[in-house]
């Protein structure tokens, strides 16, 4: 894996040297100004403003145009963008941000704390997915002066949690273009975003392309390098690979290519294919069990299913080098929370699986079948489709017949999370740097019916509920980490969801690109230092 090693070298270089010119120590290249960077845009979204929608499909465009208070640096630590510094009161209920002076919006108006106040109260708290949960107890944002924003919470907000959530959930929008302009969701600015970022929005042709150009008044000196960014809408993955090879696309983010094309391009010296720069976008493949089925409510059956799948075989033959065995709801890339002990791991053991099923009282019937289950695979991702077939194939061997139910995205969410019309489901759990952002809701009881990606398994566990609640308001960093260790072990013991595979999104990028993949959420970041070699 030459490419990965190269990417790894580049990272160590990035960490070792200054933030602005990490390439200096590597190839002594001088950054080149100019050039058009083309990006594969696979899934068009309904709007482009990241203050309103937290998803990679928005960040890949909106994240270059708008900026957030805080981003993650090369080591994955919070670094100020629109905020210069921050401070939490000892009781955890007040968090004060000092904002960067001299920043202007693309339309020339100055950026102030009023923008932060408006965005936090009207967008993050009311509209932004996950933002509404994160900011549930936010009562007010005070603006004592144009460069100070004071967040006031009803309950203690761990500073650590807020700083890890803000890189995704902390994009600021211009108050003057939204306030008093009617419904925020319907504001045309959402499709022609205005921000403070290194690139200015130019044009969006639905189904074809989005164009942004360099912001000459950007607050960082000498940035950005690129003249333009063009996002090309290509929905067919194979077609995107063809266009990369034809030089029409420089970068395909977030596993946008098929597994086989990624492997192939990885061997081509013109491209770099690696997981580097996506550590902040880790995901695990999941198997969700519906406890309404009496068979699945029996822990022996859930464990038997886990033991029946040869995960290392699946990873080696179907996913290649870019996936690894998952250990629990917190992925190993999350160094701040990954526990030393993850609890039981359920290695492949067909005999044990059969024994557990026998013990549970589900003896093989006619044709060796013990019982049948309906499996709903989420319709995103080639790996989910392959994994669902693999589950079907493997469970047949231990006498569980699987019927795969194929749906589209809307149908999947409705049937799993609202109608509960599934026995097994398999999809992705996206980890967002802190378990409190989008992980614990998969396990905490009392989730409203119909809320996607939450505990809808009819499984209630007071023990895990207490751990989750305690951790959410624990201000002490070490104690929080310990609590999440308990959470992971409990989750793996009770197994309401199994997380057997850990994956990081894959980046496929032209070898001409420089300063790429140098932060854990690089695809979503602002690309102010990205440049293209001749």
């Amino acid at each position, binding site marked *: 894996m030459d490419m990965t090693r190269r990417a790894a070298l580049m990272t160590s270089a990035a960490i070792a040297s200054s933030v602005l010119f990490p390439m200096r120590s590597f190839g002594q290249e001088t950054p080149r100004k100019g050039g058009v960077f083309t990006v594969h845009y696979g899934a068009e979204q309904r709007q482009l403003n990241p203050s309103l929608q937290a*998803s990679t499909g928005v960040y890949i465009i909106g994240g270059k145009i708008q900026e957030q208070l805080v981003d993650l640096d090369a080591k994955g630590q919070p670094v100020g963008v629109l905020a210069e510094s921050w401070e939490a009161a000892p009781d955890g209920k007040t968090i004060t941000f000092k904002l960067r002076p001299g920043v202007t919006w693309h339309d020339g108006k100055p950026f102030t704390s009023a923008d932060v106040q408006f965005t936090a109260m009207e967008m993050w708290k009311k509209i932004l997915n996950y933002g509404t949960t994160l900011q549930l107890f936010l009562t007010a944002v005070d603006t004592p002066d144009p460069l100070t924003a004071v967040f006031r919470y009803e309950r203690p907000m761990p500073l650590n949690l807020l700083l890890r959530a803000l890189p995704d959930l902390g994009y600021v929008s211009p108050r003057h273009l939204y306030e008093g302009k009617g419904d925020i969701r319907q504001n045309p600015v959402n499709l022609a975003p205005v921000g403070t970022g290194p690139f200015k929005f130019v044009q969006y042709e639905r189904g074809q392309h989005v164009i942004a150009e360099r912001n000459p008044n950007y607050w960082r000196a000498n940035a950005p390098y690129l003249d333009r960014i063009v996002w090309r809408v290509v929905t067919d993955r194979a077609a995107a690979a063809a266009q990369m090879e034809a030089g029409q696309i420089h970068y395909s983010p977030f596993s946008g290519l098929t597994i086989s094309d990624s492997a192939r391009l990885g061997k081509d010296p013109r491209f770099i294919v690696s997981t580097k720069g996506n550590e902040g976008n880790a995901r695990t493949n999941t198997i969700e069990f519906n406890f309404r089925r009496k068979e699945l409510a029996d822990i022996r059956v859930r464990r038997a299913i886990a033991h029946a799948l040869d995960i290392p075989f699946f990873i080696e033959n179907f996913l290649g080098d870019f996936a690894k065995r998952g250990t629990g709801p917190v992925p190993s890339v999350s160094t701040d929370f990954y526990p030393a002990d993850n609890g039981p791991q359920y290695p492949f053991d067909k005999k044990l699986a059969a024994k557990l099923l026998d013990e549970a009282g589900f003896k093989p019937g006619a044709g060796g079948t013990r019982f049948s289950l309906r499996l709903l695979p989420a319709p995103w991702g080639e790996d989910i489709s392959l994994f669902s077939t693999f589950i079907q194939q493997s469970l047949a061997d231990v006498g569980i017949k699987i019927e795969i139910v194929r749906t*589209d995205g809307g149908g999947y969410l409705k*049937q799993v999370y609202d109608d509960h019309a599934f026995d097994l489901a398999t999809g992705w759990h996206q980890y967002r740097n802190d378990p409190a952002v989008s992980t614990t809701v998969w396990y905490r009881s009392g989730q409203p019916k119909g809320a996607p990606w939450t505990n809808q398994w009819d499984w209630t566990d007071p023990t895990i509920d207490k751990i989750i609640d305690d951790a959410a308001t624990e201000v002490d960093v070490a104690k929080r980490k310990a609590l999440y260790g308990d959470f992971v072990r409990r989750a793996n013991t009770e197994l309401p969801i199994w997380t057997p595979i850990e994956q990081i999104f894959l980046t496929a990028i032209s070898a001409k690109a420089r300063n790429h993949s140098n932060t854990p959420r690089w695809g979503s970041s602002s690309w102010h230092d990205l440049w293209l070699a001749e």
Partner: protein
Amino acid sequence: MRVLTLAGRRLAASIPTLILILIGVFLLLQLAPGDTVDAMMAQMGGGDAATAKQLREFYGLDLSVWAQLGNYLWRLVRLDLGFSAIYGKPVATVIAERLPATILLMTASLSFAFFFGLILGVVAARGVNKWPDTLISTLGLLFYAMPTFWFGLMAIVVFSIYLQWLPAGGFEDITVSYTGLRRTLDIALHLVLPTLTLGLFYMAIYLRIMRGSMLEVLNLDFVRTARSKGMDETRVVVRHVLRNALLPMVTLIGLQAGTMLGGSVVVESVFSLPGLGRLAYESVIQRDLNTLLGIIFVSALLVITINFIVDLLYARLDPRITTGS
């Protein structure tokens, strides 16, 4: 003037059909699992219950089905196709943006199918049961029996991947902003494979019909007479045979307009063309009811218009039929 009145009458006569279709599809989609908010959450990759509830209110999905249907029809009366949930724009605008690619693709495929179907049909009929006929008829059969999308995929493998003659997809090259003639050429180049993919199936049909009616007409009395009078073969073909043989072909265009629009869903998806077909597919998946109904409305209008033009052509080709009937 007469044509306009006729067109008006035709349209008026089609209104019940149109309304039947729209209400039918509207009610059908109410039975679908999940609504546009579920689809949107799926696309965002995350969200919470409060967000979902707000969005449902925003899209008017908290109203009863009949209230929604009533609203829709009332808007339609005022020629308002509504607002697209996916695109955040009026449906009319969204469709207007996507219509050119589809119309271009359909026109190109139809012209290709018609022109080559005609020529090959004539060639085959002239040399009936000899090797050109066998070759052409066999090819026609193969094109007829081939899944269109599969031909598209294989054409991409051969022409875009191995030979690298033609682009693998897209409507035009947007990294370089061409203008004028160069842009036209660029778009034409992008449309070669899609046109072939969509057109070959229809070419196979036209070829068969052309060949059949040529054979039929060549045996008719007036053609024999013309021949015996010593008119040269080509003139006989052009003046008498072609005119009569064209009738069934023209009829077929009218009948197949709907099918062809359906076929463009698959072809546009293979070649990632920003057309109406792909929009339709996306709006089904995204449960974007307004957009889907808008597309159905527009494509029904398109089919009705094509049929109207076909009738006019028919009248021109066959003087025995009057357009009044």
